[in-house]
């Protein structure tokens, strides 16, 4: 028997993969072979560890040394130092884990300290392509308990008691959804999983699929047993190739182990699972549109009622939950509903995964108990705003949500508090913006998104979002008129109240919340034709800073419209009438002597 003395965990989530972790793994294998260490040192590719900013991330156990931004060139030295000589390669160790003369455990650094991992329990810890590792971490124990010891109604009661609410955005109580579907009449029923994670800036569902796919399979099988379904579908974005591949591998492994298919664990219960790929339509994140898409149709939403619980996939009763919701199920079954309901706030139980991005030091994935404040997320876990800039707003809920300004930084985050301050939980994207981001431009960005993704079925959404976008484009281009803010508000109310599905009903939220908190920016654009953050190009002028200009003539040569005048040793000047604001001069100037104002 071989003796493994050390394990090297390499993150192979999409973030780290994009920064080259696949090559790292090959290089590591090669280097280990060179030193004849292949038998005693094991390289394990794991799912997302959370700290994508520092990718590719490599952790060496048993020491738990956390190396960040490792490149192929570092591998030879890393193996030589750490694995041959047993010395930590200090220059690659993540600086926050270096204390006074000793390394600090990764679990004690700011980013991880306040986290509580349930949905992400195994992400970054196990090899997602190896079912045995999942089994070793209590995998499929919940399924075993459910199938052999519990009645379907007991399962539903446990989920109800835990207080789990849907993590896809709307926050509907999961237990109730299951109950409705169980009670519905139908000769066959379905379990469907929404893995069509379309909110820009959210990637927690992908990380679960990539890092812990068996948790989803286990949870969907449990749901099948609880509601009386024998078939399940996972609807995944085609843009997530790694997730699709790992899920497919996991389904095959589960089938080989008798954990999917006929007579699972000799219980007499049958369950099969199939993957369906999306094809790039945001609206398919809406539940009825998603069901249409699984059926091979255009992903247009259906009127509700009837709700999917009564008439869902192929007209049969269907339970539809998102990935993160399912990922909580096995832990709830294993540990009981009381354990879960003790975490979080009164009406929002458990934890929530957020994808932290934008102007923040630690971008990545984190899981925190409900009720954590935004301040803790931004400043403690996220490590604050880079380059000494000031926090302006945090955007949650993607195109359905809103921007939260600094005065609400201390709001405890849960479903209800976020709605109160004009945003929503959404699927958990959390984008931080600093003083350099223009809030009118952000509103325009989101409306551009929803307008483009509107399926066109109902006029309020199809036409209304277009009209709102036109007004916003005008405002950003310096053509804003008095009364535009009021026009936007009135359109928003109309669209919210009369659209068919969640996409239209929430599309105006980014505009409403930015008007609510940043009305002054709208007014500056409209009344003074000025963009306070210096983003909206049409409202800016490019000017030469006289003190910095060395009169070198480089910008003059670069200007495509000859708008720059000046000779050698004569300070240059930009003719505002001719300038097309292309920015070529700013890029060309070696002395940073041209600025946007």
């Amino acid at each position, binding site marked *: 028997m071989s003796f493994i003395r050390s394990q090297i965990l390499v993150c192979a989530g*999409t*973030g780290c*993969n*994009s*920064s080259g972790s696949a090559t790292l793994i090959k290089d590591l294998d090669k280097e280990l072979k060179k030193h004849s260490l292949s038998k005693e040192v094991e390289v394990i590719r794991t799912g997302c560890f959370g*700290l*994508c*900013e520092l*990718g590719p991330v490599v952790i060496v156990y048993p020491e738990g040394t956390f190396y960040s931004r490792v490149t192929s060139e570092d591998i030879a030295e890393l193996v030589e130092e750490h694995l041959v000589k047993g010395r930590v390669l200090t220059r690659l160790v993540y600086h926050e884990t270096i204390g006074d003369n000793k390394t600090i455990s990764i679990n004690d650094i700011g980013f991880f300290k306040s986290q509580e991992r349930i949905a992400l329990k195994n992400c970054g810890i196990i090899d997602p392509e190896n079912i045995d590792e999942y089994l070793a971490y209590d995998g499929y124990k919940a399924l075993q308990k459910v199938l052999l010891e519990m009645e379907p109604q007991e399962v539903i009661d446990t989920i109800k008691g835990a207080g789990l609410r849907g993590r896809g955005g709307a926050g509907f109580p999961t237990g109730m959804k299951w109950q409705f579907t169980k009670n519905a009449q139908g000769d066959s029923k379905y379990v469907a999983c929404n893995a069509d*994670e*379309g*909110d*820009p*800036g*959210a*990637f927690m569902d*992908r990380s679960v699929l990539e890092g812990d796919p068996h948790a989803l399979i286990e949870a969907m099988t449990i749901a099948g047993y609880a509601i009386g379904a024998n078939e399940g579908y996972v609807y995944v974005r*085609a*843009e*997530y190739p790694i997730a699709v591949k790992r899920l497919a591998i996991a389904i095959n492994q589960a089938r080989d182990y008798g954990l999917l298919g006929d007579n699972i664990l000799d219980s007499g219960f049958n369950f099969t699972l199939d993957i*369906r*790929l*999306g*094809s*790039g*339509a*945001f609206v398919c994140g809406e539940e009825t549109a998603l069901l249409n*898409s*699984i*059926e*091979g*149709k*255009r*992903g*247009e939403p259906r009127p509700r009622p009837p709700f999917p619980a009564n008439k869902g996939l*192929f007209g049969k009763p269907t339970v539809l939950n998102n990935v993160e919701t399912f990922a909580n199920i096995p832990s709830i079954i294993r540990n009981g509903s009381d354990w879960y309901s003790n975490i979080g706030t009164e009406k929002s139980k458990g934890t929530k995964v957020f*994808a932290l*991005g*934008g*102007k923040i030091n630690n*971008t*990545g994935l984190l899981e925190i108990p409900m009720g954590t404040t935004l301040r803790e997320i931004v400043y403690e876990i996220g490590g604050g705003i880079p380059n000494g800039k000031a926090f302006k707003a945090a*955007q949650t809920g*993607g195109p359905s949500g809103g921007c939260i300004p600094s005065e609400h930084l201390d709001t405890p985050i849960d479903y209800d508090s976020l709605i109160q301050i004009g945003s929503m939980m959404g699927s958990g*994207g959390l*984008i931080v*913006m600093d003083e350099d*981001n223009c809030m009118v431009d*952000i509103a325009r*960005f*989101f409306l551009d998104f929803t307008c483009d993704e509107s*399926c066109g079925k109902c006029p309020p959404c199809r036409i209304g979002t277009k009209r709102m976008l036109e007004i916003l484009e005008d405002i950003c281009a310096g053509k804003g008129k008095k009364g535009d803010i009021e026009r936007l508000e009135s359109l928003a109310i109309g669209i919210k109240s009369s659209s068919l599905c969640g996409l239209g009903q929430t599309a105006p939220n980014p505009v409403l919340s930015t008007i609510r908190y940043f009305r002054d920016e709208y007014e500056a654009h409209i009344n003074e034709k000025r963009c306070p953050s210096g983003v909206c190009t049409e409202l800016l002028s490019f000017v030469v800073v006289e003190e910095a200009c060395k009169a070198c003539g480089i910008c003059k040569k670069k200007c495509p419209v000859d708008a720059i005048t000046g000779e050698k040793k004569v300070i240059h000047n930009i003719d505002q009438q001719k300038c097309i604001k292309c*920015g070529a001069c700013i*890029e060309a100037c070696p002395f940073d002597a041209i600025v946007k104002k």
Partner: protein
Amino acid sequence: MLKDAKIENFDDLKIIIDKHRETPGCLMQIMQEAQQKYGSLPIEVQDMIANELNMPLTEIYGVATFYSLFTLEPKGEYNIGVCLGTACYVKGAQAIIDKISDKLGIKVGETTEDGKFTLEATRCVGACGLAPVMMINDDVYGRLQPKEIVEIIEKY
């Protein structure tokens, strides 16, 4: 990638259709595989799917034009996708697009005349930690700055 699908490859399409024919809701799976095979879904391909599945062509066309990943026209040899997710946007993805547009002389959604590059603004690719991000086929470039663009494109 085949630009002219209609001539000799119908057999492959038949195989794809037959593989999925019995699956409920098989249309999108067939179209996804057909596009992988042919690079796009020209009208001949849609027509054959319609005939084989005994569905109206309008329905196939309706699905093909609804989803953004289906394309009726062949794309360039290299597909440049600049992520326009929120994280990338707030970190300056628009400037990246403008730079590429400028360099290649094409707008978003267009293909260069020599058929080499297609420029697209994509939805969030989920690599928010590396924002702003662009992909050229399967190669990912992260933490981009506009001044790096020319050098990257010239590699292709």
